[in-house]
């Protein structure tokens, strides 16, 4: 599309601009739709595990429930607490939402289906996800209220702790793939084990890291069982306590967009992205479009997220910190050493 628009009457530079804007919309709008539907799915899964019906009134099977909620939120009054820091109070949800959308620029949906195919894709993701904490921290501080502030402090500590081990996990994947480019990481997983499996996660050396990454991604998105930032038994609604109307909705959308992003990252880094599970020809795997594989795998991981949310009790704060610093960090550090040793031996042979 970029070439087509560049060669049309728009000219090279302006055509590029229009094409990029169109592609951004092509990602962002379906993403918003996906967020609305995934909230419905989340509530349905959660309800099914609690033997309830879940949303079933608005639209067929309650499919339009999220849109009804959106409309309700949209029509509500925006309340700004009188002692809040107004500018920052309104800025915080915008930051959360924008940052949640930013990272999707480098996510490859297929072999050539990526908005920005940059060399430092994974570093970009790390950088953007480290920005996510600002929305929460600013929201907590600007609300000028006790519980949001506690929640912001918790969120900052939690996200920084888990980002460290996520960084090490990403390094071990990068060592295997030899590149930071997400598209190439997926392509390097093709036929990984004896030319059979299209997933790093099935590699015995990387499987523990896949598990650790799944758990760390739950902690990073402040999702159950690590949702201490909005633990309703202790902090009312956490950093969102003072928010209402659209500013609340932006937090909500950003949170779920982040969860979808983490599902996509799990799939891309460890489970073969848009590739079918096995690299064999006698099953017509490859006739199914890659994007369906990607979305199917993402949905599977989202199901795991929901499943965990419905079944696992919340961690205590010291347990969360212990898991992050005393278990995940040494483990992932050890694994970086192991993986780099393996890659070294694989490439250059034993140093004898």
């Amino acid at each position: 599309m970029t070439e087509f628009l560049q060669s049309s009457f728009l000219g090279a530079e302006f055509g590029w601009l229009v094409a990029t804007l169109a592609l951004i919309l092509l990602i962002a709008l379906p993403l918003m739709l996906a967020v609305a539907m995934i909230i419905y799915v989340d509530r349905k899964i959660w309800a099914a595990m609690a033997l309830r019906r879940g949303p079933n009134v608005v639209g067929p099977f309650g499919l339009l429930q999220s849109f009804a909620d959106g409309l309700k939120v949209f029509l509500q009054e925006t309340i700004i607490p009188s002692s809040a820091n107004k500018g920052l109070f309104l800025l915080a949800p915008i930051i959360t939402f924008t940052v949640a959308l930013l990272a999707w620029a480098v996510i490859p949906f297929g072999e050539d289906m990526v908005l920005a195919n940059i060399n430092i894709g994974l570093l970009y993701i790390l950088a953007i996800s480290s920005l996510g904490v600002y929305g929460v921290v600013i929201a907590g501080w600007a609300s000028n209220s006790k519980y949001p502030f506690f929640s912001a402090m918790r969120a900052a500590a939690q996200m920084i702790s888990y980002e460290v081990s996520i960084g090490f996990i990403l390094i071990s994947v990068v060592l295997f793939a030899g590149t930071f480019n997400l598209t190439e990481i997926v392509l390097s997983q093709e036929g990984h084990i004896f030319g059979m499996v299209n997933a790093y996660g099935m590699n015995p050396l990387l499987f523990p890291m896949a598990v650790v990454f799944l758990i760390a991604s739950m902690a990073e998105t402040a999702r159950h069982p690590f949702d201490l930032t909005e633990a309703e038994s202790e902090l009312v609604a956490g950093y969102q306590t003072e928010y209402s109307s659209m500013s609340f909705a932006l937090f909500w959308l950003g949170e779920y967009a982040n969860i979808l992003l983490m599902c996509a990252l799990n799939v891309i880094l460890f489970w073969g992205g848009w590739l079918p599970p096995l690299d064999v020809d006698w099953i017509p795997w490859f006739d199914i479009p890659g994007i369906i594989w990607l979305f199917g795998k993402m949905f599977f991981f989202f199901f795991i997220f929901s499943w965990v949310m419905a079944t696992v009790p919340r961690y205590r704060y010291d347990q969360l910190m212990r898991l992050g610093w005393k278990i995940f960090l040494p483990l992932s550090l050890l694994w970086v050493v192991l993986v780099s040793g393996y890659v070294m031996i694989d490439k250059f042979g034993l140093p004898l």
Partner: protein
Amino acid sequence: MQIFAFYLFASVVLASGAMCIFSRNPVHSVLWLILAFFNAAGLMVLVGAEFIAALLVIVYVGAVAVLFLFVVMMLDIDFAELRAGFMKHLPLGLLLALVLVVEIIFGVGAWQSSGMGQATAAVGIPEGAPSNIEQLGALLYTKYVFLFEAAGMILLVAMVGAIVLTHRTRSGVRKQNVANQVARRPEDATRNTQPEVGKGVEL
């Protein structure tokens, strides 16, 4: 397009740097500082150093500035006291600013007179060259490997030092032993009894 982006980033860096100094609220200052970091990363991308840009965002914006913000938010700052100290420290501040300006002038002068500026500007980044990360890695782990390791050791020593300085063993604290808690079974913790009518249970 690039010119536009350059002036956008550069002007925002300067403006947010200035706002960082001039804003009354320290939390606002930190936020302006973060904006300055972020736009500096944008400038790095423009000159083709995307790895440095990513590092700047990850390390400074993502970790260091969060800790700044964390600390500044928790501080209870008296603004009147802060402003009273302004005149007292003004001469020292001006001296520092002067030294910095002179250093920048010397630096830029040396850069231009040695012709380094023109040389690199004319070359640019060739098409299909190995990426930033590969080139940096190739240099760091071969030519500068000892310096690199020494830097790592210094950081490690600093980290251990910080922990040693702040660590104190408190007495009278009952710490939980997670392994013990996990290993605890219902048989160890509970006991079934059938007390007779009118009799209690010996605990």
